[in-house]
């Protein structure tokens, strides 16, 4: 497949982000009650959006420059859990070819990932609980004040859709693109050539491009041009499988205790806060780079690792700040969406080995991330996991096949 084909087939969020005009997101969490009607409804709804919006790569790049109708979103992301694929009619034999961690789901795999104590799955928001039936996640990315997300939810709620809306969660970029603790977010992302517009595909100085296959299935990875590394789920020739041009993502809902963090910052000073996060408040790098025991330093260690073979575990961060009602009232935080080719090797590897246990460095071993880790009943923790879903984002031709039955 040529580069252009890839760009047309991979969901826009993966390579290009939500689109530069997008300032808000509606996360629609759905249960599939009836596979056949759900397929029809999803197909129809998404076909609407396809018109000039989702499908045309040139639109993706110029969305900020043209008048955008409030009636249509900037982009729409669609993702499925393992249960969701089954409910929509993907055969068991095909599902069996998906990676184990995706089939098991986040509840089984939670303990090494820092989802312990107050973070444990028993405490997650209702739609993310193990006994709930989260099948489909649709994220509608819109301009500020857009109403498409709301109208979509109303249409799904009509009763004949074969879908049941478990919950919707609203997200919106904060002023200055800051995350709730006040750090400018999103500056550091893996650089993928296929995600760049034509004519802007030279990497900045000192930036090593990440191969497409680190994030999109069926393409070369960091291990070499002919090494696929991650099996493309499905049957038959690679390019025709359900997994081709698809990606995996972990949706990780993280409540941020802003008052506690502010209070801690008042005591320790704002420099300590920047040291804990690993970047300056304005999102620029610290003069000496991220400290090894900072959030940024642990999430992507630059220092020599205990392993002499440092395999990169990069993640595309496609999340958005959001607010919701938690067990003790309203909460702020992030709907983090971590996109990768292998949840086990990338998302789980980063979380379990680097962020939450620090096995890569003798001074960090057995310790937790100062910003996002759980520090125990006596320590000061600022971030609480409120839900995790393991999702598959099919390429568009695979999506058509799924929805076509």
């Amino acid at each position, binding site marked *: 497949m040529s580069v252009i084909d890839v760009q047309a087939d991979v969901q826009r969020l993966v390579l290009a982000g939500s689109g530069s005009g997008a300032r808000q997101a509606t996360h629609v969490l759905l249960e599939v009650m009836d596979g056949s009607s759900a397929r029809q409804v999803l197909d129809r709804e998404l076909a609407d959006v396809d018109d000039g919006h989702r499908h045309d790569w040139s639109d993706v790049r110029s969305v900020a420059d043209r008048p955008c109708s409030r009636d249509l979103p900037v982009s729409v992301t669609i993702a499925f859990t393992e249960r969701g694929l089954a409910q929509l009619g993907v055969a068991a034999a095909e599902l069996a070819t998906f990676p184990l961690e995706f089939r098991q789901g986040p509840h089984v795999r939670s303990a090494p990932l820092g989802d312990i104590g107050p973070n444990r799955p028993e405490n997650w928001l209702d739609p993310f609980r193990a006994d709930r039936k989260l099948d489909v996640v649709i994220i509608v990315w819109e301009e500020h004040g857009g109403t498409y997300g709301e109208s979509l939810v109303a249409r799904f709620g009509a009763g004949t859709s074969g879908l049941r809306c478990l919950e919707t969660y609203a997200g919106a970029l904060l002023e200055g693109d800051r995350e709730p603790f006040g750090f400018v977010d999103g500056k550091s992302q893996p650089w993928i050539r296929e995600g760049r517009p034509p004519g802007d595909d030279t990497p900045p100085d000192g930036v090593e491009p990440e191969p497409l296959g680190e994030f999109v299935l069926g393409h070369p990875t960091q291990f070499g041009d002919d090494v696929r590394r991650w099996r493309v789920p499905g049957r038959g020739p690679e390019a025709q499988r359900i997994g081709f041009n698809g990606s995996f993502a972990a949706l990780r809902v993280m409540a941020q205790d802003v008052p506690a963090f502010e209070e801690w910052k008042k005591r320790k000073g704002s420099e300590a806060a920047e040291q804990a996060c690993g970047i300056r408040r304005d999102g620029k790098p610290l003069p000496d780079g991220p400290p090894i025991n900072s959030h940024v330093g642990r999430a992507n260690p630059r220092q020599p690792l205990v392993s002499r073979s440092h395999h990169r575990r990069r993640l595309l961060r496609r999340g958005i700040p959001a607010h919701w009602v938690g067990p003790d009232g309203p909460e702020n935080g992030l709907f983090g969406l971590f996109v990768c080719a292998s949840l086990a090797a990338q998302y789980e590897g980063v979380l379990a080995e680097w962020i939450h246990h620090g*096995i890569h460095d003798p001074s*960090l071993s*057995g310790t937790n991330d100062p910003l996002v880790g759980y520090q125990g009943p006596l320590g000061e923790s600022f971030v609480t996991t409120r839900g995790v879903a393991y999702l598959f984002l099919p390429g568009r031709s695979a999506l058509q096949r799924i929805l076509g039955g």
Partner: protein
Amino acid sequence: MVIGEVASAASAAPTSHPAATPVVQSPAVVIQRVMNVVMPLRAPKEDEGETMALLKARLVMALATERDAITTGLDNLGSIHFARFNLINNDLHLISVYDGTLQGYVQEFTVQIGSAFDRIMSFVADWPPESCADDARPVSVRDHPAEFVEWVMAHDIVQIPRDPTDVVARARAPDAGDDGAGRSSDDVGRLIEDALVKQFEACPHANLSVHRGYAGRTVAQIRDALQLGW
């Protein structure tokens, strides 16, 4: 796999970094994990005059050829406390203690010693798995880390906690929706026995206990303290 895994009681290791605080949960979830993979040898090719003894001899020779690659590769991983192969009956055992997640560990070693492992796997039954049937190229563990991890997990024998009553204690935890009320210790004993009988009917092997001489310490810490190539 682990039945009701009991994490090590040891507290997290002290650290030299002032800002780093210990994880609260027992680190055995990620630090000093145990792997006991029992791999049945394939049937000897009798029509080519291969006996089981000859198959084993050839396996030993193959391991000897790959020894340097394996040693260097495992050393480079930097997360392995120790690893060894045993031949017991007609099974090849891979016993190891490592830091990290099983998938992280196995995926790394498929890169480091993938070709050596391909050679070893040619002596083993039921590899590659059926899910690789559609693959055009020969199945190498290097290209199939996810499948290999699943295969390893399926052959990693059950780890029975040192105190099996813990399995039942877990089943009785409030989160499991059972407060344990009305159960006598006899009931509990019977539950354990039933669970173990089922287990041994399904698979004759089990890992019964692990003692950790320096619990909670990573390979990184040991190497650093002993100045072994950190």
